[in-house]
C-alpha cells in the first residue's frame, strides 16, 4: 500500500506524520484520504482542484511534471503532500 507523508500543518490535521492509504493513482489515493478526513480534504483541495501552492511529490518527483493527479502508483510508493510553504 502506498505511504502518504504529511508535512507542515497537514500533520496536525492528519494527526500523523505518515499513513498507509490505498490508491492505484494519486487521484484515487487522495480521494480515499479525503474521504477519511474532511479537514485534510479542505486543506488540500478547493473546488475539486489542488489548492494553490499545495505540492504532491511521489518518490521525490513532483506529479505536476509527471501525469498530475493521474500519476499511477505502485505498492511501495511514497507520496509526500506539502501545504503552501516558503523559505530559503
Amino acid at each position, binding site marked *: 500500500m502506498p505511504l502518504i507523508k504529511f*508535512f*507542515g500543518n497537514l*500533520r496536525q490535521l492528519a494527526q500523523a506524520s505518515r499513513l498507509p492509504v490505498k490508491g492505484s493513482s494519486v487521484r484515487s489515493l487522495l480521494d480515499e484520504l479525503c474521504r477519511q478526513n474532511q479537514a485534510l480534504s479542505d486543506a488540500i483541495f478547493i473546488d475539486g482542484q489542488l489548492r494553490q501552492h499545495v*505540492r504532491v511529490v511521489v518518490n521525490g518527483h*513532483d506529479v505536476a*511534471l509527471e501525469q498530475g493527479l493521474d500519476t499511477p502508483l505502485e505498492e511501495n510508493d511514497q507520496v509526500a503532500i506539502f*501545504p*503552501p*510553504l*516558503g523559505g530559503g
Partner: protein
Amino acid sequence: MEGWAGKVLDVNLSDGSITSYPLDMELAHQFIGGRGLGARMLWDLVGPEVEPLSPENVLIFATGPLTASGAQTSNRFTVSTKSPLTGTVLDANSGGWWGMQFKRTGFDVLIVRGKSAAPVMLEIKPGSITLKDAANLWGKTVSETTEALGQNNNRRNVLCIGPAGENQVRLASIMNDGERALARGGPGAVMGSKNLKAIVVEGDQKMTVVDQELFKFVMYEMTKRIKASPLTSQALPEFGTVIMVNVVNEIGALPTRNFRTGQFEGADLISGEHLAETLMVKNQACWACPISCTRITRTENGEGEGPEYETTWAFGAECGIDDLVAITEANYLCNDLGLDTISTGVTIGCAMELSELGIINSELRFGRGELLKDVITDIAYRRGLGSELAEGSYRFAEMHGAPEYSMSVKKMEFPAYDPRGMQGQGLLFATSNRGACHMRGNMLGPEVLGLPRLVDRFATQGKAGVVVTHQNSAAVVDSLVVCKFVNMAVAEEFFARLLTAVSGVTYTGDDLMEAGERVYNLERMYNLREGFTRADDTLPRRLLEEPMPAGPSAGWVVKLEPMLKEYYQFRGWDKNGVPTPVTLKKLGLEAIR
C-alpha cells in the same frame, strides 16, 4: 526625508575625521540604495590593489529609499565591502531595527575608512556624532556588547562584532540588534581589522512621503496580498524557514555529510515540524514586518533567535548531526561570537570529512554534535585547529592538499541545496557575484515550490533565463532594501509604486528590473577587475563529476557547461563572461571599465 535622505556620513578611523556630504542623487536613482549603491561606491573606493583586511578597504552601510518609511519590511540595510573570504565584491543584508534607526539619523549611507590605532565605537545621536574609546568592550561577546551599549529596539540600536570579528576570522559576521546578522563573506573581519567594535544609532528624523494617498493605497493593496498568500500569512509565521528541511530532503537535494549524498536519515529530527513541537517559544517580527518568520527558541542552556533553515542544515545534515538541541545551541553561540552559521557549519563539515579520510588528525567526525560548541569557539578565538578553520573551508582544505573537499564557489561556502538535484540552483551558485549564495536569486521557488510556476529541476535548456530573472529581481530587493519574503506575495510593480509614492520619482516595475540588471553587471565588472574569470564560474568537482549516489536525484551531476553558455548569452556577455560594450551602454555603465 522623502525616500532618500540625500546625505552620506563619512568616518575616517585613521585620523578620526567625521564628515558628511550630499548623496549623488544621479547614482542613487540609477542604483537605488543598499546593495546597488554600495557596489557603485565600492567600485570607486576599493580597487584591485586593496587587501580586504587592510585599512584601505571600506565598509559601506547603506539603507534604501524605502527604509524607515513604514512600508512592509522597510527595516533592512546592507553593508558592502571587499570580502576577505572571497576577494569579490560583497554585500551582506540584515533586518531587525538598526537600519531603520540609522536612516532616522538623517543619512542614507555610512562609509567607514581607515583603521583606528585602538578599539573604538561610533555613536550617532541627534546633534552628536562621536568616536569613543572601546577598550572596555573589546573582547566582549555580541550580547555583552549590545547590553552594555544600551540596546532598545525602537530607540537606540547597536551594531557590533564579537570575538570572531576582533580576531579577523574570515567567516565573521557583523551583528545588529543582538541576533540579526550581516553574515556572509566575512564583513565582521573587515570591521575587526579596523578596530571598530560597534556602531550605535539613535535617530529623531521621520520619513515623509511625497504622495501620501498613493503610498497608503499601495500599502493597503500589499497588505491584502500578504494576508491572502498562504506563504506569508501561514507558512512562514507558523513554521519559519526551517520547514524547508523536509521539503528539500524529500526531493533528494539536502546536502548530507559534506555533499556526499542528498538525503539525510535524520532530517525529520531537525525539521521545522520538530522545532515547532519541541524548542519553539514564539515567532517574532522585524520592524514594520507583517510576516513574523523569526523563531524564538529555548533549550535548557539558553534562549534566542533561530535556528533558520540554512543554520539547521549547516550544523545538521551537512555535519551528519540529528540533534536539534546541539544545532540550536550552536546557532546561539555563533550569534554571540559573531560568526556566519552557514560558512562555519560547512567548514566544520569539510573538516569532518578530511578527518574521516585521515587527511587531518582530529576528533571531528560526522555526527559528533557534542563537539560543535568547542570547535565553534576555537574558530572564533583562532585556537588550535580553529585557527585553520577560521580561514574558511577552501583555504583550510588547500592547506592540507585537498581543496576539492571544500564545498564552495569563489571560496564562499555552499548553502543548503545540492545542485545535482536542482540544475538551475547550480547555475545560480556558479554565477553568483559573491560566491555560492542562494540569496542571489533562489531557484527553490521555480524548481521545487512552483513559485511562480514549476520548472523541471533536472532540465538545463532554458534554465538560464529563469536564473537571470531571479538574479535581477534579487538585486532589486537588495537595493530597495526590503525583505525577499514580501516578494513571495507581491511583484516588483508594487515596490515601484511605493518608491514613486515615497520619492516623487516615477518608477515602473521594468525600471526596477533594469536597475537590478545594472547592479548585477556592475558587480560582475568589479569581480573581473579583481581578476576573476570565466574559470571561476564553476562548481566543486564533486558536483560536476560524482553522480548523486542515491535517492530521487540519483545519477545526476550538474551539467553546468551548456547552462553557462546560455547564461552568458542571456546576460549579453561574451563567451568569456565579460559584459559586452553594448550591454554596458544599455545599462548606463559605459564608465565602468
